[in-house]
């Protein structure tokens, strides 16, 4: 039975996991989200496995079917592409944000608004600024604009 080159497969799978685990796992904690060191670590281990696996497929003096050399090279290349895309999306694409020069600055009045809350009720900024928190008048409001999930 033909031996499977497990390091090459493990390296490739780990690369995919390293990529996917950023938005779904490591992005939950700011420690691993602000700079994706955990994912880069996983990519590093994947790279090690791939190097071991590719070397195995190309060891001179042993007859490996050509197919296994192609498979190993292909998986290694795909992994490099996955890493490349990861670096591109987390370091470059993530900064493709609009400049928002017109956003309210410190000292300016925040524009008023009336929007719907999760109970389908209309709520205005003036209400949010004045309705009591735990029986006391609020000292302030923190507006958190986020991308949304859909």
């Amino acid at each position, binding site marked *: 039975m033909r031996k499977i080159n497990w390091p090459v497969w493990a390296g490739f799978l780990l690369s995919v996991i390293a990529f996917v685990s950023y938005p779904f796992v490591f992005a939950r904690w700011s420690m691993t989200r602000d700079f994706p060191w955990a994912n880069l670590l996983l990519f590093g281990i994947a790279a090690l496995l791939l190097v071991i696996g590719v070397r195995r497929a190309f060891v001179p003096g042993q007859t490996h079917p050509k197919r296994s050399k192609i498979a190993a090279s292909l998986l290694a290349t795909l992994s490099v592409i996955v890493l490349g895309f990861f670096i591109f999306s987390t370091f470059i694409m993530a900064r493709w944000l609009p400049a928002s020069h017109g956003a309210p600055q410190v000292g300016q009045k925040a524009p*008023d608004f009336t929007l719907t809350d999760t109970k389908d009720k209309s709520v205005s900024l003036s209400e949010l600024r004045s309705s009591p928190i735990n029986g006391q008048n*609020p000292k*302030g409001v*923190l507006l*958190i604009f986020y*991308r949304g999930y*859909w």
Partner: protein
Amino acid sequence: MDKFHQVGVRPVAISVDSPEVTRDLCEKAGYTFTFLSDPKAETIRRYDLVHAGAGINGQDIARPAEFLLDASGTVRWVNLTENYWVRARPEQILEAAKSLR
């Protein structure tokens, strides 16, 4: 979020998501503070936070931003992150909230 209530700050989250979608999110994540829907991104536009076509279905959404307002509605602290993945930490905001009276 209790930390914010303790210093008298009311957190309010805003996105283009519908109340229905947001309800789902809040249930799953256990959020109890105010979440508002701005489906046409009108308020988002007034705050100049539109990220055109960046939504999953190509719709306009908000770029991430936080504003700490005092009780009169004046902006006292702003965070316009340069990197979508890097957000303000609660400690930074709580620090800024100390100056509110």
